[in-house]
């Protein structure tokens, strides 16, 4: 699904695909941030932090095995470099904090893709809190809930 959803300044695409992991069925959650094919976003959007909460279909007693990937960005305007920090203290919903080295300015010409491979099954929705602002305003928290586009075929697992 493509957003912005209510409250979020940035557009998101969330794709969910099953992942055949050693532990059974897992999920690949792919979040693309800043790509707005329908261009309903008020550009530019400055963003310093995005929290992605990925609820799981059920709390699993096994620790969550995860793999996170970020597409590199080219310039300081895009945040310099983005990192993802995973927090799994809530067994029901891991939280992924996506942070740029410097606040990134999204203008519709570039996007950031965060890929989250989980060895447990994610629910269809992803909760997002972004610290962002339109234009040059102060950074504020904006929250929203996104529904993922579900792909039926298993994702190819890289190493």
């Amino acid at each position, binding site marked *: 699904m493509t957003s912005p959803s209510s409250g979020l300044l940035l557009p998101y695409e969330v794709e969910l695909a099953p992942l055949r992991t050693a532990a059974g069925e897992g999920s690949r959650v792919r979040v693309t941030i800043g790509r707005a094919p329908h261009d309903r976003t008020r550009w530019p959007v400055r963003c310093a932090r995005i929290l992605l909460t990925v609820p799981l279909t059920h709390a699993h007693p*096994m620790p969550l095995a995860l793999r996170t990937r970020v597409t590199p960005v080219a310039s300081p305007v895009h945040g310099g470099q983005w990192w993802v920090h995973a927090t799994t203290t809530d067994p029901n919903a891991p939280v992924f904090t996506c942070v740029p080295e410097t606040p990134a300015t999204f203008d519709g010409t570039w996007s950031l893709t965060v890929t989250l491979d989980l060895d447990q099954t994610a629910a269809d929705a992803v909760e997002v809190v972004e610290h962002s602002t339109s234009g040059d305003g102060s950074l504020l928290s904006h929250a929203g809930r996104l529904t993922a586009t579900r792909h039926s075929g298993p994702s190819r697992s890289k190493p």
Partner: protein
Amino acid sequence: MSDTDLVVPIQVHALAVNRKIRRYGEFLRWSPQFFLMLDEDVRAGAEPPPYQNLEDTENSPSFEGVHVQWQLPEALTTGFFHPDTGDSEFPLVPNRWLVVRYCELDGQRRAAGWVVQSDYLQNGDHGLDVPGSTTCLDPYASTPTLNRIGRAWDLSRGRWTEPRSGPLFLTAVGTGLPAFAAFAPYHKDVFLFHDTLEDLKPHQYADPPDTVLSYAVIGWYSDDEADILRTAHRIPGLVPGDGEGLDGVLSALGWAAPDDMPNTITHTRYCGCVYGIGWEADCQHDPPCSHLDSHHPDGEKIQVAVGHSTAEAAAALVAQQTRSTRSADLVRALFADALDQLDTADGDLDLDEITHRSWFSGREGGHVWRVVNRPLEGMDSQPPPPAQPEWVHELNGDQRAYDRLAPRLAHDQWRLWTLWWLRQLPPSHRPHDFTLDPAAWQAEIDRLSAAVRDQTTEVAEILARIPHAMDPEALQAEIDEYAHRKGLPETLELKRVPADTYHRPADPVVVLGNTGNTDALTRDEEDPLPCRVPSALLSEVRIGDSWHPPESAPPLPNLEGLPALCTPLLKEFALLDRAVRAPLDGSDDRTALHAIVEDPTNLSRGAWPEHTRCWTQPWLPLYLQWRVLHCATPYQDAQSQHWTFDGDRYRWNGTGAEPGGGDGNLRWTQFEGRSFLTPALKYVLREQIRRRLPTAPSDLVTALRALRDDLSEVDILSQCLDGFGDWLLQHDGTAQTTTDPGVLDLVGQTNHVPDGAGDRRQRRFQPVRAGQFVFVELHLVDRFGQVARMVTAHQAQPAQFAPIRTDSVTPDHLLYPNAPGPQRFLQLPPRLMHEARLRFDAVPEERGTPVAGWLLVNHLDQTLLVYAADGDPLGELRVVHTAEGTRATAWNALPHAPHRHPDDSDFQAAHPHVAAFASGVLGHPPSAFDALMTAIDTALDRIDETSPTEDTTPARLIGRPVALVRADLGLDLLGPPLADPSWDTALTPPEPDYPEHRWNVRLGQPDRLADGLIGYFAADDVDEPTRYETLYVADASADGGYLAPIGAGDTLRLPARPPDRLATHHVTLLVCPHTAVHATTDVLPVHHLAVAAEHTHGALARIRASFRLDPLLAPTRRDENVTVTTTLGHTEGHPPERVLDGDLSTHYLSAEHATSGDCVALDLGAERRVAGVHLAGGDPRGDHALGASCLESSLDGTDWTALTEQGPAVEINHHPAEPFAARHIRLRFTHDSDDRVAIRQITVLADPPEAGIVMPRPAPWHGVWTWAEPLATDPPRWTELPILAADDLHHPDDPIPVARSGYLQLHPASRNQPPAPEGERP
């Protein structure tokens, strides 16, 4: 051009990434995440956890291009210990690099160039408006501050202009990351240039055209003062003291000076090239063309061996490869430097013991101070050990206090650090429902801070009283100064002796074979890196049929502002690039350069540049990265113990695995990690073989050579699963930072932070490790992030993984029924994660002598002779037939025994353990005595004495002595028990129960010849007195009456306790005094106890062999029994006995001339009162008169007293005013004489000798025999008579023989006594 530059070769690697490799290649690439480390809302480690924060290369077209990485010379990447700071110091490295690319387009060769400013900082005084390429910490900032480092300047945009800069800072570890210079994503535009090939594209959206690329990389220091040639002498420990001049520096760096190196060299320049990269942007081949010649392995073909140590895992790998346990043993022996033990009788056991020891890491266990004799040069023997001055006792008291307090302080510091660290973490680190009580946490932090402060002061005060320093030389100076202050004489010295080491299990080790690695750990010392000078670069190479010199004007980028040497080096680069573009006749894929590289001697002229080769896609394994799932199988729980000790190792009973909701309905935790791979194993083996081959026995030489040849063919990498043990304790070793200097002042430098397990599923605090694990991911990652996957978390792949398991990691039971892929499970046997040591010591002298007594089996009489600790006789145990016709064990006191019976209170008070032992035997039926005798015999038959020649005591006439040795056994923990740092327990940790766990100790190794244990007596429990009702012996068939089997040591089950409540099991051992006793626990290395020679030699020399004779029919008689000996020999017909025959017409005549020190000596047979000595010298004709001499007497044949001294004489008469006591009389010549010596008679006027007993006299080879018999007194006393040899002569005065009961006794001979008369010597 004068040769001021030294050209140092470097390796250049080029990873070509085209579209296919980007999309389908396998990469794990990550960057340092200093930003997250400093982010107060995150507080992550400096490097991302494995498998997180990966670069999405697949979806990043910008990843395409050629990644050119240069590898610094080894000397510039090596750290040196700085004695002042205690840190490792790394040399500065070149900070400017020219990268030049050649390609051929449209038949024309084109050059492009860039200058990499390696130490460019984005946010710095001289930062440009250009982003740095790689995140880093600012090297100039006093607090951790984020910055970015490195940039590349495209020379097509203009000449290079050197910016102003501050002091140089760039080293191979950057801002503290060990992999900074090795892992490509860590150093873009520092030691790596990413050529996107954008400039070759015909337009923005087109691919770069297919072509062949070559790259040259030339490096230098922007400031000559930072050049290694100028700074080497300032780096502690780099250049040895005698390494003067340039040659010395180059030698220290492992670099070879070029022939005829001029003395004008002042700079280093670094140069390396890579030739012939075939670039195809859209290659559709599978595998990609660029992978055709790569060493990149198929992950599934990599062999993975897992063990508890490198040697063990490597041996398992070799055993499987060679199907030879001999080769595997050879690997273990070489790795442990134990080749000498390999073929000894106990070789297998020794090797197993050494291997087991390698499963542990050691930690200093404190020190003991002693004053010892300073070794004297040229002296074979030393004086006896000196008495310890009082101040040494005080010093040891301080040392003990320090050794006790320091771990306690460290424990409290860790507790403080735990609370402080957890509290400052953002709430996202806590369990989702955890509530932190700030007041309670602060109160505990305050309390611990105060405690740490007090203890720090106390420790510092104690330490100030103890000589100490970090540097060995400084320490010795401190010790010497301390000893001088205490007035220690020069003949003595103060020594610091390490106490027993504490141990902690090492992390499991993975050894990999067939990894495709071609990189050596280090360059061979005998093959230093060949450097060159500018005047001796390549002058010609052979291309086709002709020789080609460097072009005079090859295409070059703008070199203005760059070192002049760049031009000749690039001309050489252009020459070889030309060769790589010239195909060899008849070959599709080989070029002239291939031929030149294979035969540079004949196909090139000039100095050949090291590392020159034709390109292949690199494969340079750097990291091992893993994810494992671990299931605890606890040693014990409240219900029962789940592991059983079999005498050698613990075996899992198959019970107690932690339940949970995971696979098998068990509880699993997840451990991820990565660590550097090294070819250290191959290097160690190779060097060991080289070292040992010249002296190896011939049968080993062949095997060693075969192994050496095998090693040259195979690639083996090894690495431990770094941090596994720490992870089980929830200690996180990833680099972190704190900005609060206050807490660091209190807790000191620490390499770990507590892991509070905010995800409670990851709670796993396991101070006693035991469990099984499986790999769910296992990857080799190379310098560029390329991957070879051995296990990947995809579908059922992990279940198919089949590592080579050593015995020690092979599970005893399947973790749960029908577990998929049982071959992949790896077992970790129980181990104390808390540093611990086995205390197995003879009792300290303040509690009596370690040797409580001695036993001798008398096979003649079937008795057991019992002696006190000092060798004095006590009694004998024997089986007698009672009046009722039954057998009973009885005790008889030996001659001169001070006590009558072990049940008597005086006996028990003087020799409590001997009395208890004897009473124990007496308290059992005679069969117990028989069993004891058999047990001793059986054990002694097996026990090999390491130095039996030292024991020449007469007691051995009866048998080998057995010592009763008292010993203490304990398992000691270093410091207070470990605390669980989990959020839920950090504030008030529960009292851990592991100090109450019991661990078996098996004493003795009956299969080992060099184990001295016969049996032992144990206490009912720790801190209880030893009981002597049961002797534990190796014999498994012992019936449990008096003898019981040692088995797996179930009678010695010890708790591992902290220092404030140590537990000690008091045992008494029956041992061979010359052979060590082994204690096996499995949870710690095997420990040995050997009785110090000072406790055995004196006593053994005093032990008298006693043989009971009952009845003996013999009379007594008085007998002169005088014997004569001489050092001068005798002339035939004139033996020395002539001087005693009472006939002045006969005489003794020496064989040789007398020289000073020669003597003629009389032994009176016993000490007697001497009233006078008359000596008639010369023969009856008056010839051979006596030379100058001294008449002397002695009681013991050792210490002599002069009676008279005279010049040359015929007669000597000595009549003292008072008779004197003597046994020996001798005439000692005091000057050399040119005549032989004749003596007609020696007459000694002495009291008549004591009566002796007449019987066949035993040979006096080992000493003097006497007869001892009891007198009818109360308490019983003994009389001791000399033995007079029975003869065939008539002795009418002899009394009538009577039946006697007593003991033949052998008194040890003094080494200085005259030898036994000829004919009586063996």
